[in-house]
Each structure stands twice: as structure tokens, then as C-alpha cells.
């Protein structure tokens, strides 16, 4: 019996030993309030908006749980609205400040950009520039949630300007209280000119007014008791709590003013260290302040304790969130991280994802003034730019039934931060495609303060485990490494077989710079060239030169002249390594050759530059242009992204210029850099679908849209259009009425010196095209080899070792690195 008991006890202990460790693997309740949401574990944790996508498996349907359908409604009004602001909801209606277009203003400027007010001159066409814009005025308006019955509040009147004065009054912000009353903050400025034209300030007024739903004023609170003798006063934030107390921040004092509705000051709650970013009303009607705490080194949320006249305990806020939305319903407050809208419960420190914008085909960059309603709907304002006009609409979002969302094949998109353009294109693709949709995973959301590469590590680990995204945004990713491992698809066949593109559709220099080992692994819409410019009479007329050539040219300059302006050793070493690495590393054979005289000369040349530029109080800034004109600097290290700026240097250098580049033993010394890029993984199951999205970067349509390219387009036709625009002459009339070419702008060089920009000549264009065609691609540069060179070179720069010793160490370390990769 005893033996049996012993055995049973031993067996039980063995089972416990097995089972107990498994108990630690459970998911906590807090993390899944609504169908697989992400969680903020205890307050200030990293923003993990995409963790609920769980690594973007192609068959993952969990995205449907966060889909809302959007109904866009134009406000029913005959008036033109330029913008809506400060959207609030009360009494079953929306209240907002609407910027109404009241007319058009046309201004005329002369060649010196002085405003012309003489009507006769204008009538005669004696102006260089004509600038038209809408004249607007703010109006307090309301509408139904569906956008209907939009009207100005009939009984609202802005504070009038005192008689005898001129001026203006503006409504800057508004909010509602618990009883449905509307509160507005208004500023009124008044002034007049006497008979001599002397300006007199007639005093400003800062008011907070309580209005009823028709706009009639119930109470006016004059804020003069707050700002008193302060010279500069403004209200940054104001809110009303459930009991009707006003909370105001602004002016020169750092803290919160608490005022009752009669205007009587109840208390001030000072803030010792930090600055208040925002006031937010929580679900319980209390008001909290979001401020940057210098002590904590982060943003902090605290309730305002009017009894204690102090800020309460810190409340949890997800990391990297700087703006909150007033609470209501089930959540103490809401926040939008650009990818999703979340509701947050302070007691349980849980963030619950409500809406995923991209999955709902909503561009969150166009969304503002988001208001979650108690019935689960979400209302906001959408502002977009279409057909050269601002398009303002009210958006009502309603949670979609996941079963009604059509099944589509998923393409996963991996990025280290999603920019505005790509986000808009993804939404456009998802709306247009019946068969595919793109799900985004932004791996930068996994970075933490302690480990800023955590996101990249996670992506790498997922790739190794076989979970490879279909499309990758190449910015911030080790693309060369991925190419070497065969992870990326060669896009050349897709470009060649594309009915609209073909390799002839791409600028040849850009195509060559994009090539890596004969293949093209990323699509890019624009590029710029990093190069060095010098006077042709000093540096010669050929692109590319060696360190010896540079020294010889420097000898022609006045004594004391520098090669580059304000350039440190590290800067120069970086650029020279960028250009020259392929001369010292043979990836085919695995041989490195740093132990040669040329590399040693290069190190010795870099050593002549300062370790750092001393920007202390004695530093006197003199522009590069001026230093070149005075013969103190020989070269200009610059980026070339258009047909204008380099022509400034012709003036500055006093003659023809040459894109001589950074010193290199072969090549032009210039390098092409691509700003954006998308790649397709070699394991993508739907490569044609992925290409149908990625290809937009190469299209003429995209590259000629107004999306702030500011660089050379890669599409040949778009490039030709840019050339045509640059060569187009702008005509005006001179004082004799003759038609003459006028400049389309000017570049400031120095005090009193400006360069007028006229149309580019064919010679200018040819020079740029030659630069582009001879620039090398950034793929030739390996960061790890540069790091080895930079690290070892320090000992030489500091005089501890000879250049030969350092070159030998670099040779050893670089050889190991190169041979490892083979």
C-alpha cells in the first residue's frame, strides 16, 4: 500500500513537472479584447499597430475584423468650402469651423517680387508674376452626420470691431460640453491709422464664448484676467469638463488655467518641467493634459487635479503617440497611429484596435478630426486634392460584417515606414482590384528605444523561416544582401514585356545605375546625382579624376585655398569610399587590394581635412558660393536633381563648370541615388499581380503627377517633359513694350548677389544627360567595408599608426569579409 502511494505521488509530481511549464504559454485576456488585437502591456510600450496582422500570412483573414466601410458625403451647400476644422459632435449634429471661399484674390508682382498696386500698370501688363488664390473666412457651421442640412449657425455673430477701428476676428477652436453647448475660442484684433498713416493698436481681445445650438451667445468669458500684462497671448488648447469648468493653456505661462463659466479664475495648475502638448477629455468627463516631461524624457498624460492644483499620477499612454482623441463609449481615450484607430482603457492598460485604415481602403493622411460615436460609428473629415481643387467631405465609418467582405488573394507588403504616396497607391490598388489586395506590415513599429534595428531583425528572421513578404519597400532594408541571397525577383523581364514600358521607357543612365549584376531588382520613380563641381579652367573638362589630379588642380588655386568647404574627414572618406570601393574589392575572385600606394595616398589626402568643424561662437558662417567666388574653396560637393541649380555654379565659378566628381581611379566619381524603391520577392506566388502594383513607379502618369518628386524622373517621357519645361522660355515685356525673355526665378548667392534663372539651353541639358549616363549606382557601395575602413583609418588620422600599417589591417579585415560572402 505504502509503495503504491509512493508511486502515485511520484507519478503526480512527474505530470506536474510536465504540465506547469506549458501554463506559461497562455495568451492574456487583455491582449484580445476584440478579435486578435494588439496590446499595450503597461502603458508606454512601443506602438504596435501591425502586430495584429501577425506576420502577414497570405491566407490570414484576421484583417477583416478591422474593416469599416466609409461613406463620403459632400456637405450640401452652394458655398465653396476650402477646409473644415475642429469637427465636434453634439445634439445629434456636427459642428465645425468651415473656411468658406468668399472670393478670389489676384496679386501682381514685379521682377523684384514687389507687390504692384497701381491699377494702370496692371492693366498695361507691366508685371512679371501673377498669383491667384482663394480668399476665405472662417464660419461656424453645423450639419447632419450624413452631411445634409449644412448651414451656418444662424444666431452666431463674430465679435464686432470697435467703431473707428479696422481689424478682424477669428474663431480658432471649438469644443462641446456635457450638456451639448458649444464653446468657441475667438480672437479679435483691432487697429487704425491716423491721418499721418501711423499705425495704432486698438487692443486685442481673447474670448471664450458659450453658445447654444443655434449659435446664440449664452456666456462670454473675457480671458484678459488670464493674460493680464503678458505681451504675447494665445490659447493653445481649451476644453470643458463635465461640470462646466474651462481648462485653458497658452500664453507665456507654463501650466493650465482653470476658469468657471463666469470667467472667474478657479486656479492655475503650473507645470514645472515640460510643455503641454494637448488637453484631452476622458470618458469620465475629467480633463487630462498630455505634456512632454523632461524628467521622464517622454510624453506623459496626467489628470488635472483642481483641488490639489497639481497634475495627478501619470496615466498610461502607448509609446510614440503624441495626440489623443477625447474619450467616450467604452474607452477612456482614442488615438490614431496612422495605420489604425485604437480605443484605450486606462484601468486595464489595454489598447484595442478598432479600424485598420488601409484595410478599410481609407487614406488616413487625408483624415482629420476623428470622432468615435457611442453607437460605434466613427465620423471624420476627409480633405483631398483632386483636379487642382481641395475636396472636403464628411466621412462616416461603419463597422463592416466580415462575412460580407469579398475574398481576395493577399499580397503582403513589408516596409520600414510607409510614406504618403505609397499608402495612397496601395489604397487605390485595393479599391480597383477585384482579385488582390495588399496588406501592409510596417516593421519599423517593432523598433524600440533600446533596439532600433528590432524591426529589421524581425523581418530577417521571418524571411529565414520562409515567411517572405511579396513586395518590399527597399528604403531602410539591406537590399544588396537580399539580392545576393536570391531573395528578390529580377524585374528586367517584366519591364521588357510590359506593354506600356519596355527598357526604352526608362532613362538609360537610371537603368544602368539600378542594375546589380545585370539584373534590376527594384523599381524607382526618381533619382538624383551626388557629385562634385569645379571650374573647368581649374579641374579640366573631363568627368572623373584621381587624388593626384586633385592635388595638381589645388596647386593652381590661391594659397590657402581648400579643396572642399566645411568638409570633415569622415564626410570625405565616406564619399570617396562610395566611389572607389569597386577599385579595391574584386567580388568575383574575393581579392582585396588595399595595400597599394593609391589607397595610401587617398588616406593621406583625407587626413588633411579637419576631424570636425568647430561651430562655436567664433564660427562665422560664410556661404559656399561666396567662398568659391573669393577663391577660398576649389570644389562644390552637391546633389544635382534638376536643370537649374548647377547653372548657379557657372555664375559662382565665373565660367564653365565640370562635373568632376569625387577622386577615383576609374569612373566618373558621381553616384546616382534613388529615393524610393519597391521590389518583388522571388518567392511571391503572384508575381504578375505584384508587378501590376509595383510598375506604377516607372509610369509616366505617376511621375508627372504633382507628388513632390523634386528629382529626375526615371521614365524617359517624364524626363523629356522635364527637359522641355526647363528649356521653355518665359516671355514678358520690357519698358519699351518689346517681348523679351524673363527669368522664372532667382537664386540667392550672397548679400546683394542673385542669379536669375532663365531657360536651360541644349548645352546645359546635354551636360546633365552626360552626368546621368556616367554616374555609377549606389549598389557598388558596401556599408560593412566602409565601416572597416573608417574604423581603422582613425588610428592613422590621430597619428597613432602609419598609413601602411592601417592599410594592412584594412586589407586583412576586408579580405575576411569579402571571402565570407562568396
Amino acid at each position, binding site marked *: 500500500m505504502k509503495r503504491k502511494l509512493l*508511486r502515485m505521488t*511520484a*507519478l503526480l509530481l*512527474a505530470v506536474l*513537472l*510536465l504540465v506547469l511549464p506549458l501554463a506559461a504559454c497562455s495568451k492574456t485576456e487583455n491582449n484580445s479584447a476584440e478579435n486578435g488585437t494588439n496590446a499595450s502591456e503597461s502603458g508606454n510600450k512601443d506602438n504596435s499597430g501591425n502586430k495584429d496582422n501577425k506576420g502577414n500570412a497570405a491566407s490570414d483573414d484576421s484583417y477583416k475584423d478591422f474593416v469599416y466601410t466609409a461613406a463620403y458625403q459632400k456637405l450640401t451647400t452652394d458655398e465653396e468650402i476650402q477646409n473644415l476644422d475642429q469637427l465636434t459632435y453634439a445634439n445629434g449634429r456636427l459642428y465645425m469651423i468651415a473656411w468658406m471661399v468668399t472670393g478670389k484674390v489676384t496679386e501682381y508682382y514685379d521682377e523684384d517680387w514687389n507687390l504692384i498696386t497701381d491699377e494702370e500698370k496692371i492693366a498695361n501688363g507691366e508685371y512679371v508674376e501673377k498669383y491667384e488664390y482663394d480668399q476665405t473666412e472662417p464660419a461656424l457651421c453645423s450639419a447632419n452626420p450624413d452631411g445634409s442640412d449644412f448651414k451656418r449657425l444662424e444666431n452666431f455673430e463674430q465679435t464686432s470691431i470697435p467703431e473707428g477701428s479696422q481689424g478682424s476676428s477669428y474663431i480658432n477652436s471649438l469644443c462641446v460640453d456635457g450638456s451639448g453647448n458649444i464653446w468657441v475660442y475667438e480672437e479679435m484684433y483691432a487697429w487704425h491709422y491716423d491721418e499721418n498713416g501711423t499705425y495704432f493698436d486698438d487692443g486685442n481681445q481673447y474670448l471664450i464664448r458659450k453658445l447654444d445650438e443655434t449659435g446664440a451667445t449664452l456666456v462670454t468669458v473675457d480671458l484678459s484676467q488670464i493674460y493680464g500684462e503678458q505681451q504675447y497671448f494665445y490659447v493653445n488648447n481649451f476644453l470643458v469638463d463635465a461640470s462646466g469648468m474651462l481648462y485653458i493653456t497658452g500664453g507665456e505661462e507654463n501650466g493650465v488655467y482653470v476658469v468657471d463659466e463666469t470667467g472667474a479664475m478657479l486656479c492655475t495648475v503650473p507645470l514645472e518641467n515640460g510643455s503641454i502638448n494637448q488637453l484631452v477629455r476622458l470618458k469620465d468627463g475629467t480633463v487630462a493634459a498630455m505634456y512632454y516631461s523632461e524628467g521622464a524624457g517622454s510624453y506623459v498624460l496626467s489628470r488635472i487635479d483642481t483641488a490639489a492644483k497639481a497634475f495627478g499620477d501619470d496615466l498610461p499612454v502607448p509609446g510614440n503617440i503624441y495626440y489623443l482623441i477625447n474619450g467616450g463609449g467604452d474607452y477612456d481615450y482614442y488615438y490614431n497611429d496612422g495605420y489604425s484607430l485604437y480605443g484605450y482603457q486606462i484601468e486595464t492598460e489595454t489598447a484595442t484596435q478598432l479600424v485598420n485604415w488601409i484595410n478599410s481602403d481609407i487614406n488616413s493622411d487625408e483624415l482629420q478630426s476623428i470622432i468615435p460615436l457611442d453607437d460605434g460609428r466613427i465620423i471624420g473629415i476627409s480633405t483631398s486634392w483632386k483636379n487642382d481643387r481641395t475636396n472636403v467631405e464628411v466621412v462616416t465609418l461603419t463597422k463592416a460584417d466580415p462575412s460580407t467582405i469579398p475574398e481576395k488573394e493577399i499580397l503582403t507588403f513589408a516596409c520600414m515606414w510607409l510614406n504618403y504616396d505609397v499608402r495612397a497607391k496601395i489604397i487605390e490598388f485595393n479599391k480597383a482590384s477585384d482579385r488582390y489586395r495588399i496588406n501592409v506590415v510596417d516593421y519599423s513599429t517593432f523598433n524600440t528605444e533600446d533596439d532600433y534595428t528590432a524591426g529589421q531583425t524581425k523581418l*530577417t528572421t521571418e*524571411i*529565414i*523561416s*520562409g515567411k*517572405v513578404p511579396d513586395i518590399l519597400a527597399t528604403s531602410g532594408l539591406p537590399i544588396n*544582401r*537580399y539580392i*545576393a*541571397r*536570391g*531573395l528578390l525577383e529580377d524585374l528586367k523581364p517584366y519591364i521588357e514585356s510590359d506593354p506600356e514600358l519596355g527598357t526604352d521607357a526608362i532613362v538609360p543612365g537610371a537603368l544602368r545605375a539600378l542594375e546589380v549584376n545585370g539584373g534590376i531588382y527594384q523599381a524607382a520613380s526618381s533619382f538624383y546625382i551626388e557629385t562634385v563641381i569645379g571650374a573647368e579652367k581649374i579641374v579640366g573638362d573631363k568627368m572623373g579624376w584621381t587624388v593626384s589630379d586633385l592635388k595638381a588642380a589645388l596647386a593652381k588655386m590661391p594659397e590657402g585655398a581648400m579643396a572642399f568647404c566645411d568638409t570633415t574627414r569622415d564626410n570625405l572618406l565616406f564619399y570617396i569610399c562610395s566611389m572607389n570601393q569597386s577599385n579595391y574589392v574584386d567580388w568575383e575572385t*574575393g581579392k582585396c587590394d588595399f595595400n597599394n600606394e593609391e589607397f595610401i595616398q587617398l588616406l593621406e589626402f583625407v587626413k588633411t581635412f579637419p576631424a570636425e568643424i568647430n561651430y562655436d561662437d567664433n564660427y562665422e558662417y560664410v556661404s559656399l558660393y561666396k567662398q568659391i567666388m573669393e577663391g577660398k574653396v576649389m570644389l562644390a560637393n552637391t546633389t544635382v536633381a534638376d536643370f537649374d541649380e548647377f547653372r548657379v555654379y557657372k555664375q559662382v565659378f565665373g565660367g564653365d563648370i565640370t562635373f568632376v566628381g569625387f577622386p577615383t581611379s576609374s569612373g566618373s566619381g558621381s553616384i546616382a541615388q534613388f529615393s524610393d524603391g519597391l521590389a518583388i520577392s*522571388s*518567392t511571391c506566388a503572384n508575381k504578375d499581380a505584384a508587378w501590376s502594383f509595383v510598375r506604377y513607379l516607372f509610369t509616366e502618369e505617376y511621375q508627372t503627377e504633382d507628388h513632390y518628386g523634386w528629382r529626375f524622373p526615371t521614365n524617359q517621357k517624364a524626363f523629356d517633359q522635364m527637359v522641355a519645361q526647363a528649356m521653355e522660355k518665359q516671355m514678358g515685356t520690357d519698358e519699351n513694350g518689346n517681348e523679351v525673355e524673363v527669368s522664372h526665378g532667382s537664386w540667392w548667392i550672397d548679400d546683394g548677389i542673385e542669379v536669375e534663372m532663365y531657360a536651360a539651353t541644349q548645352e546645359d541639358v546635354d551636360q546633365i544627360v552626360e552626368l546621368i549616363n556616367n554616374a555609377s549606382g549606389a549598389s557598388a557601395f558596401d556599408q*560593412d567595408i566602409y565601416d*572597416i575602413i573608417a*574604423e*581603422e583609418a582613425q*588610428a592613422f588620422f590621430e597619428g*597613432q*599608426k602609419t598609413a601602411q*600599417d592601417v592599410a594592412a*589591417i584594412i586589407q*586583412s*579585415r*576586408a579580405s*575576411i*569579409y569579402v*571571402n*565570407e*560572402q*562568396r
Partner: protein
Amino acid sequence: MKINHAKLRRKMRGRLSGAAFLAPSFLGAAIFYILPFGVVVYYSLIKSPLVREFVGFENFVNVLNNSSFRMAAANTLKFSAVAVPLAVILAILLALMLECKIPAKSQLRTFFLSPMMVPVASIVLIWQVIFHYNGVLNNFLSIFGYDKIDWFKSDYGQIPIIVLFLWKNLGYNMILFMAALNNMPKGLLEVARVEGAGPVYCFFNIKLRYLSPTVLFVTILSLINSFKVFREVYLLTGAYPYESLYMLQHFMNNAFVNIDYQKLSAAAVLMAAVMVVLIAILFVAENFFGKDVEG
């Protein structure tokens, strides 16, 4: 022959209950050791994590043909061949020394054990101060007219690392030998002394024989620890050190960072195979030398 069914049943029951009690440990070992190693072997035999095509020994051939791998293997072998014997021999000598009647024995024991408790980052800092090109040691040597030696970036690179390894591990090895010496039958040594055996004869023919299991254990432990020295080397010199300090772990760590899982797996399997052979040799040697003293 009559089969005793009851006895058979008891035996089966015993084996089953034994297996049941062993199961959790075996499961743990399988999940955390055997299975992952199986995955590594699998990865070493396929083309890539994306294209899981069986390629036989192609990855192994690539690794063996890689000059960086060969350099790393040679450096690791050289380091282990020098450091491990030194760690064993010096530990035995220290144990023998502390076995004698010397003053401050306890304090000396603590002194030799304390390096084990020092965090890696502190060790690295101290070693940088000592062995830096402008460090304490070079300044000391220059007093006597010697040129500075670039300890970490020259062919002398392994010297500071061997010193570091010995400094860190001698204490623990010494304790193991001291325990083994304490357990030796004193009577046998007395008899030997009475018979006229000298201290050297006693040591090599009696003490060392009795210490052979401990020598095996300490050698294996030191061999394993000699691979862990990568941690300090990585902190001192980075992912791509000078030739003399480039070890196998550098090669494998870099392969992981470069997403070259095939190279990494093949190198790991090769290294494991070499370790198995080395340890097998050690076991055979111990069996031969220690057969008199073991049961």
C-alpha cells in the same frame, strides 16, 4: 523452461514506469537540443530556406572551399590546442600548490575563483585598457625600450585572448582538481612514500591516474569554454577582426546576419562532427589511462 509471467510482467511494468518518468526530461532534451540540431542538419542539406531543394553535400563543399572558413577553423584549432592544455596543466599545478600547507590558502582560492563572477563587459573594458595600442602594457614595455605591439590587430592577437581565457577559467578548473585530489585514497600515497617513492613518481603514477576522470572532464569543459571566448573577442574587435582572431563563431555569426543559413548550418554540423571526434578520442584516452582506478 517455465516462463515466469509474473516476473516478466513486473519487469515490463518497471521499464514502462521508468520510461514514463524519463519522458519529460527526454522530451525537453528532444525539443531543445535534438530537434533543433535536426533542423540545422536539414538546412545544411537544402539549397535555401526559400527553395527547399535537396542538394546533398554541396553546402559542405562550399564551406570547406571558403577561405574564410578555413582561416576561422585553423585559428580556432590553434587557440584550443594552446589554451586547453594550458588550462588543464596550470589548474593541476595550482590545485597541487593549494593542497600544500601554505599560508592564506583560503584567500588564494577566492582570488582564483573571483574572475568567474566578473561580467563580460567589465572584462572587455579592462582588457582594452591593458592591451590597447596605447594601453598599460605597451606603456610598460616602452619603458624598457620595446616598440608598441598592436595586440588585437596583429599576429599576436591570440595572446591576450589566451590570457583572458586562462584568467577566467583557471579558478573553476582548479576547484575541480582540488576536489578530486581530496577524494584520493591517502593510504595509497602513504604506502608509496613508505616504499620509497618520490613526489614526482607519486604524482605521475598515482595522483594523475586517479585524476584522469577529472582531467577528461576539465578538458571537455575547457574545450567548450574555448569556443565561448567568441563573446569577448566579438566585443573587443567586432564582427570582422584581424586575421589571427577570426574564429569559427565569427564565421557563423556573420553568416546568420547575412541570411546565409546554408553556410551557417553546414559550418555548425562540421564543427559538431569535429567536437564529437575530439571528445571520443578523449574518452578513449581516459579509458586507457584511468582503467586501473575506476570500477
